[in-house]
Each structure stands twice: as structure tokens, then as C-alpha cells.
């Protein structure tokens, strides 16, 4: 697959929203050590909300589908993660506004837009154990891939690799935001649960674009 048009994006969201709730307990346990333990449930509810909204998406362009998915997620699973995740999707969607398909060259800009949107909304900076710490390395990896002329599946694969490494690095970071911020140095040693969730989504995307390649 070299481009993701609206129909393919909807097909991907179908797969993603089926898969993500399966990680519910793992995310809940991780989040219970750092936050209030509701991330697994937030993701399960939010993903179901996106799934329920898919029927309204045909006819929309990919950017609007991403933005509306974010709104749907946060509508049913309103929370800090909900707001941040919705912002990431809206910012990425806005970046490709007017386009009828997502191409590999769009990805670095979309992830960068998501990162700056998240940073502006939540006030986080790099190194503070938030999803920013996977978005930024992912954007960088995607830029390198695009510069090297990589295909969409190869770039998605590399993005996932960068995510896995970045998640491992969040283990050593001290949380500054939310409930994790109150734990200070006790938050070290546990990966950022939100970043783990993003990594799982990127893994799903990488498999999706791989599987549908000619």
C-alpha cells in the first residue's frame, strides 16, 4: 500500500478499534502504577466510540476522519488522555486538510503537527514522560525514511521501531504531569502508559499497511 485513502483509513480504524481493547488489562496495570489506573478503560471506551462513529465517515476526507475520530474518542472517554489523544488526531488531520489520501511524505509532518498540538494543549515538553516522548522520535524516524525514499510500509515499520525504543526510554524519565507527577522519582522504572498505547496503535498501522501491500 502506498497511500491511505478515506476508505482504507476507515478499514484501518475498523481493525484498530477491534484490536486495541484487547490491551485493556495491560494498560490498566501499567497505569495503576503511575496514574489512576483508568487508561485501559479509557482506551477501550474511546476505541468503541470511534468504531461507532465509523458509519458517519464515508464521504469525508482522511483529515476530517482523523479529526472526527479524535472528537468521538474524547466524547465518550473524556479524560486527560482523551483530550491529548483527540488533539493529536485533530492536529494530524488538519495537516492533511484537503487531501484525498495520506502518502508516505505526509507522515513526518502529520506526526510533528500532532506533537506540537499535544505540547501546546497540555504544556508538556520533551523528557517529561508523556506521549510527546514517542511522537517526537517517531517524527524524526519518519523524516529519515522519507528522505531515503522509503515506501509507506517500510516507513511505518521504522516508525514502530522508533516507538518501541522511545517507550523503553520513557522508563527512565521522571513524570511531571498528571497524577504521575506527584510520584516524582518513584515514577522512574515504569514506561509511560500513554506512550505504550500509542506504540501499540503504530504497530497495528504498520501491520495494516504491510498486509495490504501488493
Amino acid at each position, binding site marked *: 500500500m502506498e497511500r491511505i485513502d478515506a476508505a482504507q483509513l476507515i478499514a484501518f480504524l475498523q481493525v484498530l478499534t477491534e484490536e486495541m481493547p484487547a490491551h485493556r488489562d495491560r494498560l490498566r496495570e501499567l497505569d495503576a502504577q503511575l496514574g489512576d489506573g483508568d487508561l485501559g478503560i479509557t482506551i477501550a471506551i474511546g476505541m468503541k466510540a470511534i468504531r461507532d462513529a465509523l458509519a458517519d465517515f464515508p464521504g469525508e476526507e482522511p*483529515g*476530517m476522519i482523523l*479529526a472526527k475520530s*479524535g*472528537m468521538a474518542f*474524547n*466524547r465518550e472517554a*473524556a479524560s486527560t488522555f482523551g*483530550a491529548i489523544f*483527540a*488533539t493529536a488526531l*485533530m*492536529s494530524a*488531520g*488538519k495537516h492533511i*486538510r484537503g487531501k484525498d489520501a495520506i502518502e508516505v511524505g505526509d507522515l513526518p509532518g502529520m506526526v510533528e503537527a500532532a506533537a506540537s*498540538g499535544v505540547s*501546546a*494543549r*497540555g504544556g508538556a515538553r520533551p523528557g517529561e514522560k508523556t506521549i510527546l516522548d514517542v511522537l517526537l522520535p517517531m517524527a524524526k524516524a519518519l523524516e529519515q525514511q522519507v528522505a531515503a525514499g522509503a515506501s509507506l510500509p517500510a516507513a511505518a515499520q521504522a516508525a514502530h521501531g522508533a516507538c518501541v525504543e522511545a517507550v523503553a526510554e520513557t522508563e527512565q524519565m521522571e513524570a511531571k504531569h498528571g497524577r504521575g507527577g506527584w510520584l516524582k522519582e518513584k515514577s522512574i522504572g515504569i514506561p509511560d502508559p500513554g506512550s505504550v498505547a500509542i506504540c501499540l496503535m503504530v504497530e497495528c498501522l504498520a501491520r495494516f499497511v504491510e498486509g495490504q501491500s501488493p
Partner: protein
Amino acid sequence: MKKLINDPFEFVDETIEGVLLAHRDHFQRCEGSKRALMRADGPVEGKVAIVTGGGSGHIPVFLGYVGPGLCDAASIGNVFSSPSPDDMLAATVAAHGGAGVLHLYGNYSGDRMNFGMAAEMAEMEDVEVKTVLVRDDVVSAPVEEMDRRRAVAGLFFAYKIAGARAEEGATLGEVAEAAEAAAVNTRSMGVALTSCTIPAAGEPTFQIGEDEMELGMGIHGEQGLRRGKIMPADAVVDEMLEHILADLPFEAGDEVAVLVNSLGATPPEELYIMYRRAHAVLGQAGIGIHRAFIGEYATSLEMAGASISLLRLDADLKRLLDAEAYSPLLPRAHA
């Protein structure tokens, strides 16, 4: 807890229903939201729309500032909680008259986050949005960190000024400038005598002694400047004005509008006793009073206490402050 309510979880929706039934010529619901109201004659074609919103429990903030010469629509959340981005988006899209929308609200992180999302979605739908945050509470952060300050009753001045500018047919940029001019020239401070009780919580938000007051407390019970024995009204006003005047600072020769606002349970008599002193202190400082507003402009449920807000005026702000405006939930917003 003694309240005239039904199910505490129906508090917000039943309030909105009552407001709509009582003032059906003035308000209408925004399509797609149970928690957003707009002017009955909206959207006003060709006029910049002003949309506000925030938690419930502060009437006339926010619904009461919807009307000609004020805001075009407002969305409200649960008591002291931000509305959802969907409600804010519904208000934004419904009120849009083709000339852009100003999001004008108080500087609270939940509201900022949710209004920010609504603004992004509105822009995806080709509605141009600008945002101005009201941040008038002098106690909430030092003046050099004004962008961290929260909003209290000074919202009234921002709504009044921006609303009048929009009615004049100004562009979105000009309306935003007027709102910002009101915001940066407004300073407020409150004093709380008793706590409020959030209906669904059922318990007072904070404990305060029978003989105590808290100076500088926010309109959700946020910690203030100091807690101490209650003092006579004149001494309370002196201390509040000391902080307010030094902050901008207001100087001899300035002309101001004064707002003495009840937080909910304090009666008008006490507000006038406070105003009497404020009038004298400002006179002594050589500060001219253009107009005074006394009454309930931003409340905190049944909290006893009051706030004082000053707006420093220039010729433009004076003209806008004096322009016609109307809402059935306001004591007096027009000349």
C-alpha cells in the same frame, strides 16, 4: 446541605430548562447540544459571533451573558466543570454568522483544553476562530505571570466591551482586540465568608470558621491570599483595593468602571456598603469613577462574599461600556 433542588445530577439540565422556559423570547438551544444556548435571533448574519462557556454554578456567568450587545452563545458543563468540546463546537457553529467567532472565556485549564479542541474542529469546518482569555484575579498569580491568572467577575467587562464592538460591525480581529483591551485593563479580587456546596458533592467545598473570612478566594473555592478574622466592610474593601490598585497599577487621573459583585449569598445592602467605601478610596486616590455596577454578575452558588473589579477606561472602552446590551439574567448591563 439545604437546597431547593431535585436530583443533584439533574441540576444543570433542569436549570437550563427553567431558563429556556422563563425567557423563551431570548434564548434558543444550539442544534446538537443539550448544554448550549444562543440568542433567539441568532445567528446574526454578518456579525462576529462571541461564544463563551465554562462550568455551571456561576449564573449570570455564562448563560446570562448571551444577548444583544453581549455574547451570541454559551455552552455550560457540570457544576464547576468544563463543557465538552462537542458542546462548545455546537455553540460555535450555531452562532457563526459568517464573520468569524471569538471564543471569550475564563483562563481555566479544562476550559482552555476543551475550547481549544472545539476551535480546531471549527476551523476544519471553515469557521474562523480567535480566542481571548479573561484573567483578572490579581491573587491567582503574580502580575508578571498574568497568563496563569484565573478569571472571576471581570468576565462581565470583557463580554460587555467585546459584545458592543461586535454589534458595531467590527471585524473578528477588531473584536478580539477590544476583548483583550478589556482583559488587560481589568483587575479583580474576592473575599469569601462561607463555602458553596456543589449539589452532586453534597458537602461544602471547604471549611471556614463562623468568624473567619478568606481574602482573594477564587469563584470555585480556590485558595486565596490569606485567611483571618472577619473585619468591618470598610477594612475589607481597603485591603482589597490596596492589592487591586497596585497591580495594574491604577493611578491618579485614571477613569474606571467599578463592579461590586455578590458571590451568591451576600445581599445588595452589603454590596452598597462596600461600594460606598470603594467610592471614597478611589476619590482619595484621584481616580475618577465613570460608572458603577452593583449586584450579581458572577456567583459561586450559595457562597457568601463579594468581589471588586475595576476596569481602566479610555475613550473607546467608555463608548463600548456604555453601549446598549440586554440579558434578562443581568442586573443592569445597559445604560
